[in-house]
């Protein structure tokens, strides 16, 4: 995707000072490109270290290929960068136990995370992967809040979790799909067992 056509994450223009700021380019695994401000990147420990180590100049950013983030798709990455842009410049919480951790979900975050569970879990995964401490805190809190006062059956529905029986059946189906001979061997083994043979071979 060309730079001109790249979807640009909404940026609060008023918040950008007059001096020239650098915008880094990132590419998701489905080849969607994002331009993210230097300040917003600081929310991600991983990306921040990465751009520091790369030592890109403004020209490099434009001329070199976008930095690829292989295992996050465009939809998730868009949410991540929206969050980073909104919270740019904010202090990153230190997670060393020295400060009591009380996680409150701000209104913007609550709205951002008003998405289907699959995408929410992907967002958590991306926040962990990119080491965005506060996004990880609020998203984990959101998932935890979903458990409040639910029965185990409701929890299965809320978290899209299979029951043990469904899980076993899915595993068996996957195994069979991988090795069609396995089922035959298993049936043969069962048959021999029924016939009273102790040894399969």
């Amino acid at each position, binding site marked *: 995707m060309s730079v001109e056509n790249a979807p640009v994450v909404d940026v609060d223009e008023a918040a950008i000072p007059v001096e020239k700021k650098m915008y880094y380019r990132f590419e998701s695994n489905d080849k969607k490109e994002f331009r993210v401000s230097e300040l917003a990147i600081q929310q991600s420990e991983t990306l921040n*270290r*990465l751009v520091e180590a*790369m030592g890109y100049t403004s020209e490099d950013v434009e001329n070199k290929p976008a930095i690829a983030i292989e295992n996050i798709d465009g939809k998730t990455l868009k949410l991540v960068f929206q969050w980073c842009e909104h919270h740019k410049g904010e202090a990153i919480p230190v997670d060393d136990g020295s400060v009591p951790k009380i996680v409150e979900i701000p209104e913007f975050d609550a709205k951002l995370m008003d998405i289907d*569970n699959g995408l929410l879990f992907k967002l958590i*995964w991306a926040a962990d992967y990119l080491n965005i401490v506060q996004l990880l805190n609020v998203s984990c809190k959101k998932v935890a809040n979903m458990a409040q006062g639910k029965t*185990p059956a409701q929890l299965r529905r809320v978290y899209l*979790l299979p029951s043990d029986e469904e899980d076993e059946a899915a595993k068996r189906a996957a195994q069979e799909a991988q090795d069609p001979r396995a089922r035959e061997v298993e049936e043969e083994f069962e048959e021999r067992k029924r016939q009273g043979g102790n040894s399969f071979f």
Partner: protein
Amino acid sequence: MVENRTFQNPRNQARARRYSFLEKMRIARSKRTRRSCSYSSRLSETEASQVDAWFQSFLTVCTEIVNLYMSWLLGSGIFIPSAIYTLYTGGHSRDDAVAHLLRSHEFAPEHFPRVDYRDVDFWYNSFRNKNFDLEQKPEYPNDLTRLENLPVLDKVLSNVGSEDQQKLRLVCHKFKHFIDSERKLIKTIRIQLNSDSVNLLIECGITQDIICTAYKRSEAGCEIIRDGETVTSKNNFIDAAMEDFKSANQRTDTKITSLLIISSKGDPNDEDRTMFFSKIGQTLSEVKEKVYVESLLMKDENVDELEIILTGIKPGRLSAVFMQTRSTDETDLTRIVDKNQHWQYLKQFHASSQIDDLKLDTIAHMDTVRISTTSEYSAQELLDYKIVNMNPSELFKQF
């Protein structure tokens, strides 16, 4: 110089042998250099160009061998783990390691493959767990849209209340196994100070097993009685109890549904009492993270002692405080009400002592409050705050 040296002991003789060997090597090397110089001066131009051509073809062969070796190394599967291992042992953080590896890829894309964060995470975790087998094949979850595949499941669970966590155990085997293996759920811890002993009861939130231990004062130190067996210790009975109390609390994210701290009516002496509470305060401050307690019950304690305990508890988690003070007349709870960091998160507050000058908005966020107060309120105020006036001297608020 060498000849003049004397080497009497075996160590010095060995040194002499080594010295003479190095000396011989130096002489041989200088002879070889002189000889090669004389050869080159005797070579004709044709011969010299032939030597150059041989040398060039030798270099080409060497480069081929190096390239073959590099291809083998890249395909062997231990190239990247080895690089990551070097960064790990060099003390680089996970993010630094990824940045360095990506930089290497950027400089030599044909010789250095692009590395994924997942690779670094996999190998760093493996090395941290003392597994240094570089031939392992990293495995990654395929479906990231499933909760059970999240690498931060423990972080999600740390935000879940103990009751909900119990229910999550029943959802599937995977969750049950995960929660049980963490062993971070305690239903009750009850610690009671008597005149000459401390009783500690710990009820596991997973298996419901109960461990009761008595620590009795003795001349030599104390006797520890558990499961009918008595063990003697040189420690003071309070110190011995605190060791076990600490070990129950020291794992981070351990959730305690109820913490009960009781001073028996058997009237422990003031010295023991002061020591008991200062040790509890010390123990709670020594654990890595503040203790997660959902409900705190204190019996026969005063406000100072309540404050010591509250300081050691994680704010935002404590939702109920039940306090039965020793002497109601002397206790002033006003410094707890609305001023303590736990206050805004409390849903239940019951206290036997009197609170002067209680403003109703300070308790408006709670579900139930049972306290005594000397303050007077209008009927409208009581209606506004849904207060049920059970008794002229006692306020009871319940939604």
